[in-house]
């Protein structure tokens, strides 16, 4: 387990656990953010937190045998576990006034799987139980024993839309383990592509939020601009989701002078169009009416659960790992971190809108500063059993990868903490007291990807 503070230092807390009695004292009551982590180590490693208030399984669902722990080294990767009597439990309501509404895991739209159980009084949500980890693919186990070069592509496929953030976080972890400094041009290119990733995500999200209140012009315009940016991605890197652009020790994709001009021109156009979209959206009474005061996440809750990314900044929690622990070329560009206090859907959208304009400005600075030179260095032999961390501010918030190197340049252990993993526990708190039809809107405003969280 690890934790860190805000003074550009990381603090790792290590504890030894007796293999014959794999238990440790739970801190989840004092530190609510530790809740999920403790339940996860119980599921995957069989380390039991003593005094944890929630005994339900988390990552592995209730029909997984309780005594099998897939991340233990004696568990073969492709072992098939029998299905057992389900231990799944949801909130039970004694009152007849509470209606239980189960939704999912397959939803009506083209979205990812999750099971939600609303306890509603009339239209108002009293409690939300979210059952996630449906897309748990056993990715961390699959990476064990894999050469680090190949594991990079695995990291890239944790999530479709934060692909680049994941691959850069993984590459940074490996580079840190091997004490490699990547060439300055590669630093700039990484920053450039990361901002392009943020742009297509944020602009797509601003358009998508309009689907929450049926604002068709907004949906179409947002989708159109997102497509424009994805086509730009494809032209300059060969992939619409920016996959395959990073390599360990630098970059695989470079931008030519001509492509630099292409980026500049496309962004000029998108910026102008996006400004018009924002003006339409923020002056539209119905849109504001639906978004303001809906789904408020309070600052205390955001702090207790260590919420990150857009959701944190919209609730007055000023965290941005680009500024707090600069990586790539973020210490060489100027940008402002927008923070709003309201914590509602509108605040989250405003944060995104502000960040889009910040990204335009960052990219402009990068294109001016872009240095000539190499874009790649070699990775030396990595010392086995050395561990390192890499981090990245994905469009959804900070993503942290921890890797322990194994023999022969392989991965020995791997843990991914995506922004979504930190933010999911906050969603049930934000929907409380809202009406059921507003849930899609609130959920969209957090824009959490399930695949990142479930791995």
């Amino acid at each position, binding site marked *: 387990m690890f934790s860190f503070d805000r003074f550009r230092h990381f603090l790792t807390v290590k504890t030894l656990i007796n293999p014959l009695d794999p238990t440790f004292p739970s801190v989840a009551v004092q530190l609510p953010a530790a809740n999920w982590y403790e339940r996860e180590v119980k599921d995957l490693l069989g380390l039991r937190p003593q005094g944890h208030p929630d005994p339900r399984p988390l990552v*592995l*669902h209730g029909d*997984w045998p309780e005594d099998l722990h*897939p991340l233990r080294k004696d*568990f073969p*990767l*492709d*072992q*098939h*576990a029998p299905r057992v009597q389900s231990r799944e439990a949801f909130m039970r309501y004694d009152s007849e006034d509470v209606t239980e509404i189960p939704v999912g*895991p*397959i939803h*009506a*739209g*083209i*979205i*990812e*799987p999750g099971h939600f159980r609303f306890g509603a009084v009339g239209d108002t949500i009293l409690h939300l139980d979210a059952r996630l*980890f*449906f*897309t*748990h*693919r*056993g*990715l961390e*186990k*699959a990476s064990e024993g894999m050469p680090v070069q190949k594991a990079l*592509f*695995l990291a890239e*496929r*944790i*999530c*479709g*839309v934060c*692909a680049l953030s994941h691959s850069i976080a993984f590459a940074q972890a490996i580079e840190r383990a091997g004490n490699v400094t990547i060439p300055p041009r590669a630093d700039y290119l990484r920053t450039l592509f990361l901002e392009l990733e943020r742009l297509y995500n944020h602009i797509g999200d601003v358009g998508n939020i309009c689907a929450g209140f049926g604002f068709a012009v907004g949906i*179409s315009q947002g*989708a*159109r601009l*997102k*497509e424009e940016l*994805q086509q730009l991605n494809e032209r300059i890197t060969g992939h*619409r*989701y920016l*996959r395959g652009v990073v390599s360990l020790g630098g970059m695989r994709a470079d931008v030519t002078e001509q492509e630099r001009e292409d980026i500049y021109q496309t962004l000029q156009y998108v910026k102008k169009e996006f400004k018009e979209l924002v003006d339409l959206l923020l002056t539209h009474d119905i849109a504001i009416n639906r978004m303001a005061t809906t789904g408020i996440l309070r600052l205390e809750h955001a702090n207790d659960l260590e919420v990150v990314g857009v959701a944190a900044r919209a609730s007055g929690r000023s965290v941005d790992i680009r500024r707090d622990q600069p990586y790539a070329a973020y210490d060489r560009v100027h940008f402002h971190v927008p923070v709003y206090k309201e914590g509602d859907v509108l605040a989250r959208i405003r944060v995104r809108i502000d960040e889009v304009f910040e990204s335009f400005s960052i990219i402009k600075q990068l294109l001016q500063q872009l240095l000539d030179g190499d874009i790649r260095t070699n990775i030396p032999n990595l010392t086995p059993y050395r561990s390192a961390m890499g981090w990245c501010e994905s469009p959804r918030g900070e993503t942290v990868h921890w890797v322990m190197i194994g023999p022969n340049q392989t991965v020995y252990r791997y843990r991914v903490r995506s922004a979504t993993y930190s933010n999911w526990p906050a969603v049930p708190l934000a929907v409380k007291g809202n009406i059921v039809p507003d849930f899609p809107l609130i959920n969209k405003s957090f824009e959490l*990807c*399930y*695949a990142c969280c479930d791995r």
Partner: protein
Amino acid sequence: MKSGKEQTADLRWALQKRMKEVLGRSLHIRHVDSGSCNGCDFEMNTLTNPIYDIQRFGVDFVASPRHADMLMVTGGVTRHLEEALIKTYNAASEPKMVVAIGACACSGGIFGRTYANYGGIDHIVPVYVYVPGCPPRPEAIIEGILLALDRYEELSRNKGENRH
């Protein structure tokens, strides 16, 4: 031999023509995420944006498998979603046409077979069309849809043969 320009003009209307020929009017698709990284899901969403606007051909994504002519499955079937996939497949109307989108659905892709992932949807349900790619481009998905329409022709031909 057709000139290049004529060919693109043909392709442009190919989907619409085929759709009319085979189905009379429209095709309804239900998406099932069986554990993908959401890249393929986003590309399917892209098909409904104003650039590709697949609805103009009469293709639409619907909310229930009961309304669907076709299931589009992404992801390599995780242990937790196996039941959901089977239930959706059973709920879909005949001929239960399944299209596998992306490397994970086709073969398990880079994840392969793990304790939580079956590695390919054809282990669980029969697949009619495979669309490789990681993720496939939106136009590659359209090609997959076009190819899957053959199924209806095959079925009506078989019906005709049985009658004789």
